[in-house]
């Protein structure tokens, strides 16, 4: 049985050149580099990366034109939401029946609606409601959804079953119907609309977060984190959630737009903002009978909704890339 320890012809230079070493290494069938382990000298062309992660992210976001434009637009919306009521050319809740359904003109840029209210003023004043509702509803849904989804995904077992079956039950009812039911129980009003929209969108977030965590949890780097003795909380917050972050952020920005749409839908149904307070969806709902006589009454609030939703979606896309070190635009 001596075949196995006999040395063979081997012209490859080897570390530890004694024949004994050669004997041991030949069986590997691979060439060993001679000398020491290659030392990776500091390469002058590869400079240190800036420490600041946020700076890197900002650079990448800036390079994405659509995201940048969206960010500017959303910033403008926020400014309008804050100072809106002070800059409207007319009082947005003042009716003037003699001046109803006027097309856009120099006095009324977006025309007037069926009650003679200035649409431009109303669209500006409505920004605050739409943005607040969007952000608040998403915050409610996001925090609850992330916590529930993370627990379900990470813990597994019966905890997972209980949480997810509850979510399935909520998903079984169409969300707008569930929101209307909640509104019926809570009463009319914008604050209740926020709560209703927030609650009904929890399952979407919980499901997405759970699904992501299930797949991330299987990675070796999570096992590695266990081996080096990290606590479960630290593993969730430092290793699991950051890797689910891009999906969560994209979903949240899309969520803001769908919350804005839901508010509009509730407003359209007369359940959200109560007249005469201006709100985009409510404006659409009340003007829908005049779509052929005076299309501008629907056009401008509709455009406001579309542009806002689009901006949030594009920003979400940009953020996803910026947050992923691998996809960053260099």
């Amino acid at each position, binding site marked *: 049985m001596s075949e196995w320890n006999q040395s063979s012809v081997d012209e490859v230079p080897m570390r530890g050149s004694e024949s004994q070493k050669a004997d041991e290494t030949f*069986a590997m069938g*691979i060439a060993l580099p001679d000398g020491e382990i290659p030392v*990776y000298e500091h390469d002058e062309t590869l400079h240190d*990366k800036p420490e600041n992660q946020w700076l890197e992210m900002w650079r990448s976001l800036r390079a994405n034109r659509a995201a940048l434009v969206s960010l500017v637009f959303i910033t403008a919306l926020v400014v309008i939401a804050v100072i809106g009521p002070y800059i409207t050319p007319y009082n947005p809740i003042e009716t003037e029946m003699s001046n109803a359904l006027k097309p856009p003109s120099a006095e009324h840029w977006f025309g007037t609606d069926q009650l003679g209210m200035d649409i431009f003023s109303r669209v500006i004043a409505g920004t605050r409601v739409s943005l607040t509702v969007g952000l608040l509803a998403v915050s409610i849904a996001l925090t609850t959804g992330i916590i529930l989804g993370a627990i379900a995904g990470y813990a597994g077992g019966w905890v997972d079953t209980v949480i997810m079956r509850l979510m399935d039950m909520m998903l079984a009812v169409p969300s707008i119907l569930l929101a209307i039911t909640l509104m019926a129980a809570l009463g009319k009003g914008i604050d209740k609309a926020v709560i209703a929209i927030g609650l009904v969108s929890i399952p979407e977030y919980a499901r997405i977060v759970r699904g992501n965590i299930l797949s991330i949890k299987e990675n070796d780097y999570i096992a590695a984190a266990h*081996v*080096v*003795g990290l606590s479960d909380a630290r593993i969730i917050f430092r290793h699991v959630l950051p890797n689910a972050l891009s999906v969560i952020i994209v979903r949240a920005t899309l969520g803001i737009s769908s919350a804005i749409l839901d508010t509009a839908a509730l407003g359209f149904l007369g359940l959200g903002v109560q007249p005469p307070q201006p709100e985009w969806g409510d404006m659409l709902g009340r003007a829908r009978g005049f779509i052929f006589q005076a299309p501008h009454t629907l056009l401008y609030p509709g455009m406001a909704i579309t542009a806002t939703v689009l901006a949030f979606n594009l920003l979400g896309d940009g953020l996803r890339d910026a947050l992923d070190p*691998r996809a960053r635009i260099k």
Partner: protein
Amino acid sequence: MTEPLISLRHLSKHFTMDRDLLGRTTSVLKAVDDLSLDIFPGETFGLVGESGCGKTTVGKLLVDLYTPTAGEIVYGGVDLAKLRPQERRRYCRDIQLIFQDPYASLNPRMPVGDIIAEPIRVNRLQPAEKIDDRVGYLLNAVGLSANYRNRFPHEFSGGQRQRVGIARALAMEPKLIVCDEPVSALDVSIQAQVLNLLDDLSEEFGLTYLFIAHGLNVVKHISDRVGVMYLGKLVEVAPKRELYSNPLHPYTKALLSAIPVTNPALRTERILLEGDVTSPIDPKPGCRFASRCYAKSDCVGCDCDVEMPPLREVSPGHLVACYLHPGD
């Protein structure tokens, strides 16, 4: 003989595959079955066997990623399996793991400096102001520039990532490192570099390795002793030279004959094993290797199909589980 650093005693890990309506287990996968093994300080123990033989499970049992079904892992005089989680964590710090896949074992969203610093920080192994120096030192120790600390894993090659994984394990100041096929995902030329690195580190840091591999060729370079596993059982353990010059178990012989030989004059007949690996789910009694054993007919009157032969010492340090070599 010196005291073993770590002893596995009758260690088993069974996975439940199926339960009946009452929740009783009806089908069991015996990934590791009654395995006993001593690893001595400073040595490199090579553990080989084909895919699915349970070698990775042994590694995961050692680093507390799995809880043993039965048996003991004795380290520092205590049985790790019986400790409470808090205490176990303190002991398990000394046992670290290097993963097979360098692409999956590093968090893609963490700079490598943080990946290495985190274990030090969380376990308070160094005072806060010294962590940076330590990370730089570890990066240099594995052959990477300390300037790379702010880079992300995706900016490295497979071999470099594996070096980062090694640095993370070293950060814990371990006594024993379980290397779970650390080079099988790497290019052949890089394999040698990483093996040499591991070899150098064992001297520098006084490490003991449990080196898991699926073939005998890689293990031959680095190991002091080699254990051959087949379907959850150790079938042969011997010092490296002894195992390679005088393999006794038919399975070891077959594995050795599968190593490619560069010199045509030295090529020997390859032993081809017939049939597939027997399933580790609900194994039949008898020798696990019996269904594929080409030497079974040589052993007249043996209990190959009745009972698994025990691991017996046939010469000093050479243990084999085969009725053909009853030992003593």
